[in-house]
């Protein structure tokens, strides 16, 4: 189907189902239960899952296939957001032109940075991309203030022209982003079923649509001769040169496509919440997408999406667990012991969630170099019947390098 083989079609269908049913899947606990705090099915977080999923899928097209580790990808995310907000200011509040503009501008920006950075490989390439991204970040804060509005961040105001839309709503406030007139990004439909509350949000489904499109294109790239050349770049660039292939345009194309994915993600972030700040381009944001991709499984199709979901879930859910909640959990213990256990456990939750995240990242990199995808494959092999297991092992395991 759609030019994919059977396995890839299944994968696409699974991702489609997950995306469509996410409001149910992410809300497994009834509203009133103590476990409801682990529910992730609210629009804001679901949007972030898919948007950062797009970001990571795009990053993986560069890093997973060619092995070029860009440490400045957040620059494209930021550029995408700024571009989208400018369209909201100048043209109107429809998100589609804004997203299209984000992709184009980020692509051009990636062409410039990639053209220069790809003259080097390995650590020098990473440093060059990092330098460019930090340069963009600092410029957004200082000299580019007319475009980026400096520290405050780029926001909508009532005096923006919005030549194709309305400057202000009837009640005098700033209009909100929409897909069609009357179909606002922030609109949600709620469904109450027994004790459960499910929220279906326009913005989420738009982002999910783009994720599926982005994922589909990524599968096609993985299975194309172009994708094969990119993997060959990672494997042995010298041999590729002596096989008559000019590697530079291949890596540059991968870099630009990857930048466009980041631009799409940035444009979507701005579409959900029309403001853009420089901190979106900071090096920590670039590092985050690297971690997402490696955590999920670099070079695999589904890995980056899993990694993005995993990190965003922990960032939002773990960070909300404070000491009171911990005391609740351990309330079955005698008072003294309870205090002791909470004191031990508390640094891993709440504000200390990054500690747990870091430990988990270390454990995964050391024990599962292939990321969550490798973990899934190993579990899958455990449950498979003995004779089949032998064949699967020889065909599916990838070498450690």
């Amino acid at each position, binding site marked *: 189907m759609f*030019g*994919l*083989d059977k396995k890839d079609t299944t994968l696409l269908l699974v991702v489609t189902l997950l995306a469509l049913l996410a409001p149910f899947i992410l809300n497994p606990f009834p509203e009133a239960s103590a476990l409801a705090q682990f529910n992730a099915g609210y629009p804001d977080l679901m949007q972030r899952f898919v948007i950062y999923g797009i970001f990571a899928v795009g990053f993986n097209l560069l890093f997973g296939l060619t092995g070029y580790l860009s440490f400045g990808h957040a620059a494209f995310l930021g550029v995408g957001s700024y571009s989208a907000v400018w369209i909201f200011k100048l043209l109107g509040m429809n998100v589609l032109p804004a997203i299209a503009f984000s992709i184009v501008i980020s692509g051009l920006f990636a062409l410039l940075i990639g053209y220069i950075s790809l003259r080097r490989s390995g650590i020098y390439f990473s440093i060059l991309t990092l330098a460019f991204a930090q340069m963009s970040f600092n410029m957004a804060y200082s000299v580019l203030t007319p475009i980026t509005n400096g520290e405050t961040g780029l926001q909508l105001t009532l005096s923006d022209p919005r030549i194709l839309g309305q400057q202000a709503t009837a009640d005098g406030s700033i209009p909100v982003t929409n897909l069609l007139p009357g179909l606002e990004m922030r609109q949600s439909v709620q469904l109450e079923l027994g004790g459960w509350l499910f929220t279906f949000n326009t913005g989420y489904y738009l982002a999910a649509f783009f994720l599926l499109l982005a994922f589909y*294109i990524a599968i*096609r*790239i993985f*299975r*194309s*001769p*172009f*994708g*094969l*050349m990119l*993997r*060959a770049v*990672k*494997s*042995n660039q*010298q*041999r*590729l*040169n*002596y*096989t*008559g*292939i*000019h*590697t530079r*345009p*291949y890596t540059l*194309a991968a870099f630009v*496509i990857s930048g466009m994915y980041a631009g799409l993600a940035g444009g979507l972030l701005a579409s959900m919440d029309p403001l853009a700040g420089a901190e979106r381009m900071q090096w920590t944001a670039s590092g985050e997408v690297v971690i997402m991709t490696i955590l999920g499984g670099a070079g695999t199709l589904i890995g980056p999406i899993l990694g993005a979901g995993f990190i965003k879930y922990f960032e939002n859910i773990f960070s909300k667990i404070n000491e009171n909640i911990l005391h609740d959990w351990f309330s079955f213990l005698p008072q003294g012991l309870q205090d002791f256990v909470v004191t031990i456990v508390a640094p891993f939750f709440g504000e200390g969630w990054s500690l747990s995240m870091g430990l988990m990242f270390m454990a995964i990199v050391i024990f599962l170099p292939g990321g969550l995808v490798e973990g899934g494959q190993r579990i899958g092999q455990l449950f498979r019947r003995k004779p089949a297991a032998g064949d699967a092992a020889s*065909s599916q395991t*990838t*070498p450690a*390098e």
Partner: protein
Amino acid sequence: MGILEVKGVGKRFGGLQALGNVNLSIAENSVHAIIGPNGAGKSTLLNCLVGKLIPDTGSVMFNGQSVLGRKPHEINQMGISRVFQTPEIFGDLTVLENVLIPCFAKRDGAFELNALTSISGQSDMRDKAEQILTDVNMQDKTGMHAASLSRGDKRRLEMAMCLVQEPKLLLLDEPTAGMARADTNNTIDLLKEIKSKRDITMAIIEHDMHVVFSLAERITVLAQGTPLVEDIPEKIKGHPKVQEAYLGQAHG
């Protein structure tokens, strides 16, 4: 006029004159060996032919066109393929994918943004790749990871990758270096078979005299960056100058 004409090529690295005044003509469809002791400049000469090094003086013409100043991928696209001393293959990819890459390079040129076409849909390329793998006796290993092949199979795979491009000139840089005698003989047989099946010119840089005398139709002996003699194998064998270059002068 040979397919490859090297005229007056010189290359200096700092104070070392690696190549003096090298003149070499390789006839079309011949097997030409370049031999010489360590440090004679064999590898430097080869690197000048494939675009890795640019000589200081002289000219290198392939098929009537100069190769000087061209990048390795451009020289490959002109019809020169190269086998390395240690097999250079794509270890992370399967054997079949290893051979598909040169197939695509031959068909699509140095760059083609065919990101939305599927490899599995291109049966003509697959057929071509599978055929060449059958030719080198690797048809039952197409799905294996190239990194897990034995040394001899890696060499076969690299040959297949070069041959599938149907190059006019195949450069072999010590194709049997570090091989056991049995593997060396297999490689000799493979090269003989290749030569008998198609029109191809081979230039072999080799240390092993057994290989050279089994394959070469003409031999150039290189010593201290200059060609000493060039002749048919029978004449090279007992040539006093050659023995001198390899064993040192008898009298100071």
